[in-house]
């Protein structure tokens, strides 16, 4: 049954139903509504969890790490500067293989400070070892939280995950969402069984350091676990589809790609606008499609290459910029398509809340088809 609600509220509701035992989060726009809702649920005895009102994001994730290592299912949420402040802890959590799920209400990163949306924050943590899933709409955001816990806690995986949804654009938008009920969630997501935990009955030392004899192998093991997460995601997504009727068994998803000459590649909410734009372009006779990346980490390189095999021009919409190095997704898509023969162009777009309209998507397609790309799209040259 669909319900009409704010994206943040929908996320909070599903998180509640995933039954985290410890929540530690620090407020930051536009993530706040989620953690405020959770705080209220705990205060109302609707959610039986410890809610730690930490003094910073650094402590938020550190507390999550401790709680996870001690054997609890944990949850956090952040964005932008908050995620940036967690950077060191994020690498640590992944290396320590703690299955923490954290919502990222994507927002740009300063300077200049901006509370508005792009995906710089999570993308700039792409090396950290966290799984990264991007939602196109609030329904997907809700569903990905359940899948994320399932994948992360899989004893073959044991990794943390970001569930990314675009700040404001999704988090502050009211739209219809189907919220699985508690029993349904319980049926899908079993209670947390830690693989190993801090326990006086069975002492273990966690987070030892690794000499050159061992370090490479630990990193390799973590990297392998990320790649194994592909299978785990597909399985969890298929099971999700079987139970809830919404299938997430694909790491990437094509839209009207079958006979497309030109493909857009994008992540998150911009995919919705792109789809509408594509419908219009299709109506105008243009063979255009979209490839949506759902799992940015592990990066689905072969899956992208496969999905785009028939396409001659690829335009990547990058809501981030690796300063002095181009858009991150564009770069990785090029590497994935290396040797394919398709022309690939990268567009830095929608930074810091710059709105994207259907006509902007069409303009990007035009540019790509004209062979112009690897550029910022939509600059207000009048202020430069």
């Amino acid at each position: 049954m669909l319900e009409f609600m704010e994206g943040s509220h929908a996320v909070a509701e599903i998180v509640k139903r995933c039954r985290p035992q410890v929540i530690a989060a620090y407020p930051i726009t536009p993530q706040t509504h989620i953690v405020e809702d959770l705080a209220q649920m705990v205060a109302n005895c609707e959610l039986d969890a410890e809610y730690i009102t930490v003094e910073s994001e650094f402590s938020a994730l550190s507390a999550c790490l401790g709680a996870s290592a001690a054997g609890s299912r944990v949850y956090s949420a952040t964005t932008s500067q908050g995620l940036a402040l967690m950077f060191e802890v994020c690498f640590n959590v992944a290396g320590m293989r703690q299955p923490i799920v954290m919502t990222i209400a994507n927002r740009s990163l300063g300077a200049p400070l901006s509370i508005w949306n792009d995906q710089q924050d999570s993308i700039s943590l792409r090396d950290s070892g966290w799984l990264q899933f991007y939602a196109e709409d609030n329904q997907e955001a809700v569903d990905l939280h359940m899948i994320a816990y399932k994948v992360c806690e899989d004893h073959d995986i044991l990794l943390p995950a970001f569930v990314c949804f675009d700040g404001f654009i999704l988090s502050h938008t009211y739209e219809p969402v189907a919220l699985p009920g508690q029993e349904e969630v319980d049926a899908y997501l079993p209670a947390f069984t830690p693989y190993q935990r801090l326990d006086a009955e069975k002492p273990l030392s966690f987070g030892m350091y690794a000499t050159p004899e061992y370090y490479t192998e630990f990193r390799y093991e973590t990297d392998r676990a990320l790649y194994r997460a592909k299978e785990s995601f597909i399985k969890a997504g298929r099971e999700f589809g079987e139970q809830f009727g919404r299938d997430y068994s694909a790491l990437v998803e094509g839209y009207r790609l079958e006979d497309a000459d030109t493909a857009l590649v994008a992540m998150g909410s911009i995919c919705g606008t792109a789809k509408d734009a594509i419908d219009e372009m299709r109506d105008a006779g243009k063979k255009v499609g979209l490839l949506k990346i759902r799992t940015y980490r592990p990066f689905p390189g072969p899956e992208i290459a496969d999905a785009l095999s028939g396409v001659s021009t690829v335009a990547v919409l990058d809501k981030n910029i690796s300063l002095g190095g181009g858009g991150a997704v564009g770069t990785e898509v090029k590497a994935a398509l290396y040797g394919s023969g398709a022309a690939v162009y990268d567009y830095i777009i929608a930074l810091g809340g710059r709105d994207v309209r259907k006509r902007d998507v069409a303009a990007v397609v035009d540019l790509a088809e004209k062979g112009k790309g690897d550029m910022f799209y939509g600059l207000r040259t009048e202020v430069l």
Partner: protein
Amino acid sequence: MTAAELIAFAAFEGGAYAQAFPAFGVERRGAPVQAFVRFSDAKIRLRSQVYEPDYIIVQDPTLIGDVDVFMGMKAGGIAIVNTEKPDFEASVPEGVKVYAIDATTIALEELGVPITNTTLMGAFAAATGEIQLEPLEHALRNRFSGSMADKNVRAAERAYNLIGGAV
């Protein structure tokens, strides 16, 4: 919940897909703000702001003049303006129909506070025909409880009937 969200909610209750979102910003209490609504029979995927609205609601008439509240409106559009003075001056685009309603007074009378969301919702429903009275009432009763629900429904209905007479 803003008027935008209430309207979208009512549209959703009436069986449409709906989307509502504010113009994301850092505005402090007192500063002028905007919000957007879409509704449609199909799932709404578009995420951009609304640049060419079919309808607009102006909650604070003092903005007219300072801001071009009718920007982007096309012929056939409908504007609902909360004002005590139905004879306000503004450059309305051609073909746009303007309904003036003193929502503040209605709200004060019905709810005791100058919060005009629900009143304007009633006016919107009547002016545009996009929302029927029943889902509107349903939405309000879902949102408010007890006597607050009754009061808000009454405020919306008063506006509905006022504008309904004008339509």
